[in-house]
């Protein structure tokens, strides 16, 4: 489970970030013009950026932001998408049509473009970028959950629940949804990586996290003007994003293999 190792490692780094970063103050708007754009060396293992801030410190401190974005976006799109999908799948008929066609409208616009539009409309900030991504992604959950609920609602235990007079809402949320938990978990862990990537993209374009936050996408954006000579400015935040997204994807795949016996060898 390489994914689990990477993700646990990231969590530890995020938790201990202020202790791990050699120059914790460099996470902010600090400037040290005397040491700007230093290549990786002993004092600054990953070099410094155009304001003289230590890149290692900023990458480490950025872990917190990144994990926060990944988790918040995933939870938010789950909170919107799961109930909508569950209700649509259970009730069927007109409700299903209405909810799923609404989801279709959201899905008909490429998620990045939609998120970009929403983030811009809301005024660029990290919080708004997270809201924007969740708005673009909830239909994804709705579809997966709806499919699950469609098959679960035909199961005998649902009939049994109705035989003892369980109200419909309670049938959906306390009898059917707990059975979807493994699917939700797998989808969520796969989505964290995606959310991080999209948030980085939004920051890169300028509608996500704003300077001086040590957000990786923002660092890429700031560093791209210094390529190719100042290669370290974009390489290390890029590697950080790569490893994080890979970690969450591996974790999601691993969880799916464990929780879905059909894929188990």
């Amino acid at each position, binding site marked *: 489970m390489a994914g689990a190792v990477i993700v646990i490692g990231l969590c530890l780094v995020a938790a201990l970030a202020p202790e791990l970063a050699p120059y914790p103050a460099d996470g902010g708007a600090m400037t040290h013009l005397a040491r700007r754009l230093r290549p990786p060396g002993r004092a600054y293992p990953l070099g410094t950026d155009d304001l003289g801030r230590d890149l290692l410190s900023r990458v480490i401190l950025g872990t917190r932001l990144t994990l926060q974005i990944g988790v918040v976006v995933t939870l938010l799109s789950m909170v919107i998408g799961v109930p909508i999908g569950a209700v649509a799948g259970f009730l069927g008929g007109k409700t299903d049509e209405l909810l799923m066609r609404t989801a279709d409208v959201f899905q008909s616009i490429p998620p990045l473009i939609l998120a970009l539009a929403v983030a811009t409309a809301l005024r660029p900030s990290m919080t708004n970028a997270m809201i924007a991504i969740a708005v673009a992604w909830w239909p994804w959950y709705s579809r997966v959950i709806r499919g699950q609920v469609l098959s679960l609602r035909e199961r005998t*235990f649902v009939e049994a629940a*109705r035989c003892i007079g369980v109200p419909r809402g309670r049938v959906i949320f306390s009898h059917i949804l707990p059975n979807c938990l493994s699917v939700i978990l797998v989808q969520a862990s796969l989505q964290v990586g995606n959310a991080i990537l999209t948030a980085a993209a939004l920051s890169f374009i300028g509608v996500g996290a704003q300077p001086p936050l040590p957000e990786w996408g923002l660092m890429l954006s700031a560093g791209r003007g210094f390529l190719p000579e100042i290669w370290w400015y974009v390489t290390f935040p890029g590697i950080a994003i790569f490893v994080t997204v890979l970690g969450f994807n591996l974790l999601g795949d691993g969880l799916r293999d464990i929780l879905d016996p059909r894929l188990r060898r």
Partner: protein
Amino acid sequence: MIAASPAAPGAQGAAPPLLDVQDLRTHFETYAGTLVAVEGISFSVARGEILGLVGETGCGKSVTALAILRLISPPGRISRGRIRFEGRDLLALSETEMRELRGSQISMILQEPKMALNPVIRVGDQVAETLLIHERSLTRRTATGRAVEMLATLGIPDPPRIARRYPHELSGGMAQRIMIAMMLVTRPKLLIADEPTSALDVTIQAQILELMKALKREIDTALLLITHDLGVMAETCDRVAVMYAGSVVEQGSVATVLKRPQHPYTQGLLRTIPNDVAPDQPLYSIRGLVPSLLQPPTGCAFAPRCDRAMPVCVQAVPPRYALGADHHVACFLHRDRPAVR
């Protein structure tokens, strides 16, 4: 002896039956056409009585049960008839009123106990759920306590421990006990049991039936037992209604129907029991096949398979003829008797 019994419940109009089904018809709209699953059946269950609904697979027993609880989901519909429970017309109740009735007044045990329990909820909590839904004032703790007591009543060893198990950790017999606990913990007045023992081993079957009979006495509930097993019926029921292709063809006390069956289908069904057939003799079977419910034969549904069919049998649907106070047969062989409406 039973036919002459003067105090047949419900027959005199003194005490109304607990459940009274009149002329119930249900159909399903399918792509292949309208499928009539239940065609105008009538029967009643008195308080504390065990009525057996017997018939082959697909004759409409389960649909009848679901109709009583109003749990037939689209494309199925109740197209005609009246279902009265304690005098209330169930088909006229609102969905909320109906929901309050389910599980508290009328409960239903389903066929496959292991499938009927929610795989991700501890069985004790599933039993407690019935209580929590119908007695809002209960705390989760008291409900769980009463659930555990109920498990003890059902003869489950070490109930607190079993209550914390998940369904996949239980045997089929144990799962069915949990199911029974779930349905009886609120002491409903009517329990519908749809093939409660079909998925179980023969030895467990007997235990479960004994248990249901004992519980029925203790909490004074009536039982509508749906089965295709004539042995189960003979051992358990007070009265029996025999269904064929969506209709009740004969009903009466168990003793009457078993000893003196009057409908050719019931007679044939009873002859299929391999009681004293010599080892080298072929087993008896009713010739022909169950008719398609999409294109039911005109007249009596059993006529194409009946050895004693007459011209009238394929022209008209036979009404119910009364052979005794509580013995009705839907067959033209008895048209000299008074018809029941």
